[in-house]
């Protein structure tokens, strides 16, 4: 089978390079590679577009990088069924352009969509800000083919939108970071594209943030995404105020969007926000850049973390995080997702500290953040973790069940060993 040559640095994780890189062209090849690696005791890390390699700890050992990029064909697509079955290596950009021909889309808002793959996005458990409206990636997934460590090709689900035939195994592979198997094919529900898409952006003057957030949560027309953004100035195509900016995405009919815009102006106006900017032309590009800001803006001296929670506590949490970080030399960018209740925080060191001091400062900053948000997990980082910062926060109560599942699916720990939480 084809093997990539000297591109190993693409597959580098925390400064570690694989002994070899394989690029299987079909599902059976994936299964064969895994069976052989399992027998030989070689660790395999499945890699798609490499856009979310910052999720998870470095592998305990790393012999084979398994690229899924050549598994990029469409298996089933009749647009009238509103479903598609595609190879795991298909990029989200390619998928979006295929679907756009029939005015359809799949709401997987991953960063760097042109490079991110379907399988990688699912395996990394990426959560986008439109999920309160459209569901989590797991809710879009109706079937999978997965290669297991022993070379079994396992099918689950199918090509229909309702299915209770056997266990919903696909759920187990989403956000498993490739530690239970390598997703080789994913079947998804897709959606008709809404008639219109609009972003509204407002700069938040001092003292308006909390009220603006509260008013937005009471809107009669719900935004599909609602983000409070503070920082990330070098990436975002709009200006921030003293307390950042609020960005709202609306999708639906033209009439619905006009009404939403009137409501937003009124809601923000009464919170003391003087001006709301409407972005219609280029709204999709602006939205994509905002999503990229979550992760893709990995600065050299930074770590980006995500903490999940509920909208109730999120503003307080964010303020607490700021307090926690303040005594250190680190700076903080944040995105608070008002609909889904998560906080994305990037801590970075701005200055001329040497490498050792950078590591120490970031490590302290992450520890301070985790003191307030124990479940915060690393999404991206501009430096190797090297054990001083764990990628995962608090272990979940069901960690023992997860360990048992790993032992049952991958008893020799062939798949991405140590990348997942609790040493899985």
């Amino acid at each position: 089978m084809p093997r990539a040559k000297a591109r190993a640095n693409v597959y580098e994780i925390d400064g570690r390079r694989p002994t070899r890189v394989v690029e299987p062209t079909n599902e059976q090849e994936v299964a064969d590679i895994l069976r052989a690696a399992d027998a030989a005791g070689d660790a395999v890390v499945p890699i798609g577009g490499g856009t979310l390699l910052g999720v998870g700890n470095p592998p305990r050992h790393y012999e084979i990088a398994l690229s899924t990029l050549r598994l990029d064909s469409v298996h089933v697509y009749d647009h009238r069924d509103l479903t598609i079955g595609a190879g795991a290596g298909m990029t989200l950009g390619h998928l979006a352009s295929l679907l756009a021909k029939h005015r359809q889309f799949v709401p997987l808002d991953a960063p760097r969509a042109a490079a991110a793959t379907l399988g990688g996005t699912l395996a990394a458990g990426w959560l986008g800000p439109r999920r309160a409206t459209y569901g989590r990636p797991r809710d879009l997934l109706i079937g999978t083919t997965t290669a297991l460590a022993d070379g079994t090709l396992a099918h689950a689900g199918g090509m229909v939108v309702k299915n209770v035939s056997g266990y919903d195994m696909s759920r187990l592979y989403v956000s498993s970071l490739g530690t239970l198997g390598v997703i080789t094919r994913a079947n998804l529900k897709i959606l008709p594209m809404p008639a219109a898409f609009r972003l509204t952006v407002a700069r938040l003057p001092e003292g308006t943030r909390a009220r603006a957030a509260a008013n937005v949560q009471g809107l009669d027309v719900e935004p599909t995404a609602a983000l409070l953004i503070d920082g990330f100035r070098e990436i975002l195509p709009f200006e921030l105020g003293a307390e950042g900016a609020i960005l709202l995405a609306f999708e639906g009919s033209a009439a619905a969007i006009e009404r939403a815009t009137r409501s937003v102006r009124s809601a923000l106006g009464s919170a003391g926000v003087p001006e709301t900017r409407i972005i219609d032309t280029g709204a999709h590009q602006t939205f994509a850049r905002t999503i990229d800001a979550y992760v893709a803006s990995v600065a050299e001296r930074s770590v980006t973390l995500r903490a999940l929670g509920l909208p109730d506590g999120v503003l307080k949490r964010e303020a607490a995080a700021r307090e926690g970080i303040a005594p250190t030399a680190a700076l903080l960018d944040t995105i608070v997702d008002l609909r889904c209740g998560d906080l994305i925080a990037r801590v970075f060191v701005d200055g001329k500290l040497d490498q050792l001091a950078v590591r120490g400062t970031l490590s302290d900053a992450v520890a301070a953040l985790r003191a307030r948000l124990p479940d915060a997990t690393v999404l991206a980082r501009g430096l190797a973790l090297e054990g001083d910062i764990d990628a995962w926060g608090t272990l979940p109560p069901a960690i023992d069940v997860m360990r048992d599942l790993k032992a049952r699916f991958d008893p020799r720990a062939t798949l991405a060993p140590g990348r997942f939480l609790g040493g899985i």
Partner: protein
Amino acid sequence: MSVLAERLINALGADAVHTEPEDLAVYSFDAYSEDRLPSAAVVPKDVREVTQVVRIAAECGEPIVARGAGTGLCGGAVPTHGGIVVSFARMNRILEIDTRNRRAKVEPGLINLDLSRATARDGLFYAPDPASQKVSSLGGNIATNAGGPHCLSYGTTTNHVVGLEYVDSRGEVVTVHQDDPGYDLAGVLVGSEGTLGIVTSIDVRLTRLPEAVRVCVATFGDVESASEAVSQVIGAGIVPIALEIMDKVITGAVEAAFKAGYPQDAGAVLLVEIAGLADDMDASEAAIAKVVRACGALSWRAARSQAERDLLWAARKGAAGAIGRLAPNYYIQDCVVPRTKLPVVMRKVEEIVRDHQLQVGNVFHAGDGNLHPLLLFDRSRPRDIQAVIEAGSQILQTCIDHGGTISGEHGIGYEKRESLGLLFSADDLATMGRVRDVFDPARRFNPDKIFPSSASCNEVRAAS
């Protein structure tokens, strides 16, 4: 008194334990045709009592079958292997409603519709709405990953469960939540039909009630053309909240029972519900009506009042009950095909039924491709029983042949377990068996369900 009964009574009190055959009869069946008396039935009042039951069962080597309201159609709650039935009749409380975050925590015995009733004043509802929602329990809904007419837009049960507490095979309490990092254990527990653990509390997502709702009825000459219209509506990029079809047999029965105003002269009725902003209702209705008319609809009208809408839905959800007027018995099939295959599959279903000299009524979630042929028969005629069994399995095979599946919302249970092997390879089933090995290595939770009998001891366990 048996050792088992004694231990259960010691743990739960005599009023929570049944061991007499006349009391156990109630726990011996669900809405499927099999029945089997358990050794004991218990009605625990809290999670602590459930853990005690599981431990006692383990020590006495007894299987355990969790039971919701007993409305399951595939024998999922039948104690086919005897053992202990755990009823959730006393664990039916709403523990918490968090309107701001649109979440509720409930016990598994809660009746589905009671949750929406309790949250309606806050402008919220629980979206999954099986036809049995007035009587079925949330715990049972979770076991089968229940669907319903509004799944087309809102998704099935699994899309609305955000966390679970369950008692594992050792009698330990485990909590899982979608916001926890790690494997999606709640995702695999939903739809596992009580084979992985006993769910004792459920965190669900609540949905905002739509600002406006409109229900429309279109008529067609036959089921095929109505099915084609459904495909065309979806293909045109319109996803209503519900798209349901009833054929002439069904509308005749529901009209006799409900007098909801469904036309009696049409070959098929298409029920369409749209919901959203008031500003969009007229345009949405017009867009759908245009497609439907182009597909040969004979008529189209919108319900004029809330009362009329409610009645149309009550009749639709009461269809299976109303069919009792037409034949002494009926068998309801539940299978799914890709939406575009509906017309051809519906034609095949007609042929299969005709070949077996049976009568069929069709009422189904057309928007999801989820068929429900109701085969009418008379249990006292052995010929009928054989014909229903054969026709039922041919319909399943037809769905599989057209890229479909053998259950959309009722589950596999005891009824379809031998058919699961038609859909999945031994490897696929063995992979599911690995999950079972982790959760329930002794196969004590709801044995005989989901997996083919040939696979239950060998392939499904031969995971390592």
